[in-house]
């Protein structure tokens, strides 16, 4: 299936969870927040939240700003 992650198309196996995605992006253990189709998915649900074809995912972190 194909999902959009931070504006980029990405192929994932069917049934992939957010945890799978984070693992694949080599971001496991990083401090970040995830939104799917503009809804927050809390960290506690990353292991069980299954992505669907066409989902728009945002992975964000804190950077310098004023």
């Amino acid at each position, binding site marked *: 299936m194909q999902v959009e992650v931070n504006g980029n198309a990405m192929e994932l196996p069917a049934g992939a969870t957010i945890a799978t995605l984070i693992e694949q*992006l080599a971001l496991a253990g990083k401090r970040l*927040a995830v939104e799917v189709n503009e809804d927050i998915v809390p960290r506690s649900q990353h292991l069980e939240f299954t992505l669907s074809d066409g989902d728009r995912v945002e*992975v964000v972190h804190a950077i*310098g700003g004023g």
Partner: protein
Amino acid sequence: MTDKPTDTPELQLPKDRPLEIAGRVYQSRLLVGTGKYRDMMEAGHAIETSGAEIVTVAVRRTNLGQNPDEPNLLDVISPKRYTILPNTAGCYSAKDAVRTCKLARELLDGHDLVKLEVLGEEKTLYPNMTETLVAAEELIKDGFKVMVYCSDDPLLAKRLEDMGCVAIMPLGAPIGSGLGIQNRYNIRLIVENANVPVLVDAGVGTASDATIAMELGCDGVLMNTAIAQAKDPIKMANAMRLAIEAGREAYLAGRMPKKLYASASSPIDGTFF
């Protein structure tokens, strides 16, 4: 001095209240941003020197496919040590600002203090106040503690306070302009009317600007560019720390009245010529 002494000067002096935001007391009245530094280490060093306890960050997309070992800002500016204040910089609508705050709360494990800013246009980065009001209402309803970047309109500032914002943060001049406090009268009016902390957010260019904001009775100043873009940010961070303290002390001391003409400091009595 030929002035008559005042009867009870202490009764006329402003009260020194600690800076308390959303139930937490802070020793430092200087709040700093983390943007525009050469690198994260310089930001960390400058912030430490500034003595700031509240530090703003932005929320942005994680870079995908780039060096996964690059340091994370929150490793340098630890939430254990600092109160992290995520901002909604770059948001031009209430919707985007609310979305950003929700992501920030998730990112910071439920920490719900945010700096709301909804911008109106790129050239001035002036706040869009109608969108700011909409976003503030929605965020407060959702349990956020909102520190709000706003225009210097005393009526709107009061309205934001009445809605439940925990701090009112009018600009002194456009973000990143370094023009200094261009609106002393309005800032003063906002301070006089407010029952929550008022902080000048944006406009400070150098130490004297920060002092002026504090002399007007502001509870604090939030700045980023003035420190980060100084030739020596560490030295400027220290200057700002001192400037904030000096301005606060001068405000509490109660300045002498301004006069149009001179008033001799040395007595006329006892002159021998």
